[in-house]
């Protein structure tokens, strides 16, 4: 085959020197015999399960006739301090045995009820020929990771007599799940290790994404509702009012630093970027200090100018926004359980917004000027799923849909005022 290829390349050189038919080379390589074993796949009953030397040491006598066991070839090897080779099995893989998925954060997910103990079921899938006997000993380790790849929790189980293609159960208590975030995906990685007869540590891996929830979890964001409201009463809704700029006090003390040129006016002319962000973690709103980039002005001018760029913002707490439901008639604030489902990174990251505009305000030295920014809110529907039932493993099997709404900023009010 390879000779044919070389001959054809030699013939082609006359027409196009240095040209190699890569497609032909690729096809030839694909036709060559495969030396590597097939990757792991669930075994079928039609394949007789022979005894494997890696799993059952007593079967070493049959090694000459028996097919290779669970880990016949190494994908990656490393030498540990105990001189044990670690090998990733090419014939065994772990799969998570789950029953049902529900829409969570707009994506199909397996949901576990965090209010009780749970069981995670793992199947050790071994490709044919499947060994007849069980692994005498195995260690299974679970890692739970958040979306930033931080390990939230890990737990190890030691087991005996682990049969290939069997489903194994692993228990986790509510205390162990306590630190898990609710309503958002958690990456679960399972790693099963066993020692082969050649003193080689063989392991199989599996992973899944799961959501842990208490009572409610967010199914998806719904539509926006029509009516806008403003937290117009500064006294009642002070935490939504952000004073981003205030004119300077131009008394005799401050005039001393103006190079002997007395200022009679002040003037603000700046491009301002104002950002609205949401916070799930905080119970109160957070004001971002205004930052200015001022252009150097005319020192001889009789006006103290603030020309340049400005940026500021507010971090609105979801708890505070929940209270704003009262701006609309007959709209109750959400219960803590429902609010917990909305304190979710998908709601927070999907609701950030900003505006950029030019601000102009000027006045006399004796006048005081201020610029306030407040959000204009609109209610948005969110669909929550309420857990109705879960099975003995803690896996949610039935939910009930419930629509709730919470105000979010859609516009901003800019108010520039000065004393008369």
């Amino acid at each position, binding site marked *: 085959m390879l000779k044919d290829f070389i001959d054809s390349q030699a013939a082609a050189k006359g027409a196009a020197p240095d040209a190699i038919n890569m497609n032909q080379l690729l096809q030839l390589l694909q036709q060559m015999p495969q030396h590597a074993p097939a990757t792991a796949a669930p075994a079928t009953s039609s394949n007789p399960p022979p005894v494997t030397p890696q799993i059952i040491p007593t079967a070493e006598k049959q090694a000459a006739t028996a097919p290779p066991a669970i880990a016949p070839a190494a994908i990656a090897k490393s030498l540990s301090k105990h001189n044990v080779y670690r090998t990733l099995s090419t014939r065994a893989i772990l799969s998570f045995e789950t029953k049902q998925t529900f829409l969570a954060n707009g994506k199909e997910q397996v949901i576990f009820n965090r209010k009780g103990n749970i069981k995670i079921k793992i199947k050790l899938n071994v490709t044919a020929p499947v060994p007849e006997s069980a692994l005498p000993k195995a260690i299974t380790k679970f890692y739970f990771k958040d979306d930033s790849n931080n390990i939230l929790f890990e737990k190890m189980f030691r087991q005996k007599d682990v049969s290939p293609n069997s489903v194994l159960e692993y228990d986790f208590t509510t205390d162990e799940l306590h630190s898990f975030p609710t309503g958002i995906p958690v990456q679960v990685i399972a790693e099963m290790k066993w020692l082969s007869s050649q003193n080689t540590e063989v392991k199989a891996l599996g992973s899944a994404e799961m959501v842990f929830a208490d009572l409610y979890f967010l199914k998806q964001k719904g539509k926006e509702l029509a009516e806008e409201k403003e937290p117009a009463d500064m006294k009642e809704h002070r935490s939504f009012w952000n004073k981003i700029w205030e004119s300077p006090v131009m008394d005799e003390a401050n005039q001393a630093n103006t190079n002997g040129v007395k200022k009679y006016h002040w003037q603000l002319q700046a491009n301002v970027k104002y*950002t609205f962000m949401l916070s799930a973690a905080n119970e*109160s709103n957070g004001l971002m200090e205004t930052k200015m980039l001022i252009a150097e002005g005319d020192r001889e001018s009789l006006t103290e100018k603030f020309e340049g760029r400005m940026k500021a913002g507010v971090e609105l707490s979801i708890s505070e926004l929940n209270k704003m439901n009262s701006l609309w008639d007959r709209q109750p604030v959400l219960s803590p359980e429902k609010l917990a489902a909305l304190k979710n990174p998908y709601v927070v990251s999907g609701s950030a917004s900003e505006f950029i505009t030019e601000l102009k305000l000027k006045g006399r030295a004796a006048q005081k000027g201020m610029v306030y920014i407040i959000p204009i809110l609109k209610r948005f529907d969110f669909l929550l799923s309420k857990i109705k039932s879960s099975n003995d493993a803690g896996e949610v099997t039935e939910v009930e849909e419930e629509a709730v709404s919470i105000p979010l900023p859609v516009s901003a*009010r800019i108010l520039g005022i000065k004393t008369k």
Partner: protein
Amino acid sequence: MIMRKKFYSKPFEDGEVAEERSNEPSPASPEIEYIFDGYTIEINEKIVLTPVQIINKNDG
């Protein structure tokens, strides 16, 4: 009411806020009459927000 203060962790980046984009004032006229005793209202604008993706919220 307790208000938290957050601070920008970074100074202005090159070109930040200097971009041409400017949010348009909302066509709707102000529906609420704001009154500040002793003050005159010089700016009263309603501006529609643009959704943004915040990569690191502490960067402002």
